[in-house]
């Protein structure tokens, strides 16, 4: 099995449809720190993450990057271009070795004609993204940087944290978090160190280790608003 049946947008599909999609879908593997597609590329496929993690980011004209989201197994990306056929609005790059399934817009369109439910699922995924962006916009207006960073950290741990004996391993660093919450790298490093001193996480060269994700989630309640 390719893994499509585990993805929520295809969960309600009949078995023959899933099998047909499995045949059409192209499985692709990417090493760490590899762009799957770039901002402004023409859009022609929707991707489903089978394993690994990716970051979605936009780059301004002056080269400054802003991380919009991090995605993990079971999540989809590239759905915007699939619907409006406009160029990619962001770059998607892997945070760790990642395996994805690529479905061309032509195949998805053919499937939607037969199973309109798929389109609703894609719309649901889009709604989730809009909700996340709205929450983020509110956070930027009303929440402090430490709060926003802690929330992003919890989100990343839940989404694509890897369970190890020492806790959950998250493949992100201070630079990534700083870009996501729109603050300086020095400030992000300081906050991470504060959280590490409180025993909520351990800082490694290329990843963070969260010994107890529940403790991290509880910390959000006491974080300065």
């Amino acid at each position, binding site marked *: 099995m390719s893994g499509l049946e585990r993805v929520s947008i295809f969960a309600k599909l009949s078995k023959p449809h899933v099998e047909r999609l499995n045949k059409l879908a192209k499985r692709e593997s990417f090493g760490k*720190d*590899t*762009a799957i597609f770039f901002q402004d590329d023409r859009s*022609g496929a929707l991707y489903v993450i089978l394993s690994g993690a990716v970051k979605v980011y936009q780059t301004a*004209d002056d*080269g400054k990057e802003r991380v919009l989201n991090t995605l993990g197994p079971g999540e989809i990306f590239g759905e915007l271009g699939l619907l409006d*056929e406009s160029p990619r609005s962001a770059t998607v790059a*892997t945070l760790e070795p990642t395996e994805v399934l690529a479905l061309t817009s*032509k195949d998805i369109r053919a499937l939607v004609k037969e199973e309109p439910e798929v389109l609703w699922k894609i719309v649901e995924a889009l709604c989730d993204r809009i909700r996340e962006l709205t929450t983020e916009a509110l956070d930027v207006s009303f929440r402090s940087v430490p709060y926003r960073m802690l929330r992003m950290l919890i989100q990343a741990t839940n989404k694509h944290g890897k369970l190890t004996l020492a806790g959950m391993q998250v493949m992100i660093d201070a630079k990534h978090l700083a870009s996501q919450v729109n603050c300086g790298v020095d400030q992000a490093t300081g906050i991470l160190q504060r959280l590490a001193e409180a025993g909520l996480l351990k800082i490694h060269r290329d990843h963070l280790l969260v010994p107890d994700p529940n403790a991290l989630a509880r910390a959000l309640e006491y974080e300065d608003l």
Partner: protein
Amino acid sequence: MTSRRRVGELIVLVSAILLGSTAALAHERFVKHNLKYPLHYEFFGRWPGGPFGLHPDMVRIASRVASVLAAFFLIWFVRRPITEYIERSLLRVGGPTQRALHKLACFLTDQPVRDRVFHAIGEWAVIAFLRSPGLVLMYSATNDSLVMPSFPLDPASAQIFKFVQVALAILILTQTWLPLCGAMVVGTWLYLFRWGWMVAVDAVPVLTVAVVYLSSPWQSHKLAITRINAQQMRRVRFVLGLGFLALGWLKVYNHNLIAGVADNAPSIMKDRMIGFFMAGTDPHYRRECWVIAFGLAEIMSGFMMTVGIFTRVWGAIMVFMFTKLLLVDFGWDEIPHIYPISALLTVIFSNQLSSETAPIEALDEAAWRAGHHVRRLAIIGGSTIVAAILVVFPLLYFISFFDRSGL
């Protein structure tokens, strides 16, 4: 419309007319680069027995130029699949190497290059582009000429016109009333028609900066203008490209002028691209073939820029050409070429490039998404062939009916 705006527009018109009148007094002569020995004029006219009544070598050169033009058109339409294939299937690299290669691909295919250094050069180029006409005017004022040393001022009116040029230069260098500066530049250009359309055509690239000045706010002196928006960039590209396109046809039409330049500076004849276009032609007509090849090469590059096909590549080639003219071929006399160089750098380092082929590409993309490959082939192939033929042949054929030996 506010009364303040009306006053502003009135100032623009009056100033443009005043400057035009001054230019009328000042611009007395258009200096030719004299031929050292005559051309074979029969080459440029009707050639009995030749294809379309043209000299076979002329048709050979035109066919090569049209083929190169068609090749660039074709590559342009399939540039995205090509770069996608190279990046994703052939190289398959990650990390900084992938990002660097992607930026290079974006640069070559006129896509936005999102990079700190690229952005900084772009800002600097805009600053230089908007101010370089001021430096050129200052230079020409000290050399008793109008813009270029080849446009000398009449001694009777030189003093007045030198002051006018310096005044305009100060406005430009301080970025004061840029719309007024734009109107003055356009006014001067329009008046050049009094000395013949060829003089005005020769000066079309000067209008490039005028389109930016005219679309700037009156309070320009309060702004740090470091970027050019998409609409302005489209106009800049269009005027710049059209200028070179017109200059190319002018070279083909007024063959004496460019042949005279080559007679006086033979080093400009050593160009590999021109050499390719005229390879295998009759050595007896070497200078004539060079004139046609040089003119058509400029028409080709001008057309590409006008339409927006590989704008950065052609811009970079032109920057190289102008820099060579400035530093190697002609030296200090060509210092006003800092203006076209900065204009071209502004275009090259802009992330606001667009293409007039967008409607054709939209049709092609629709066919690609629908999986209609034959339709794609018809759209791309058809437009490529039609463009390549129409750009080169009809006007070349039409011009051959005019006797230009006495120009």
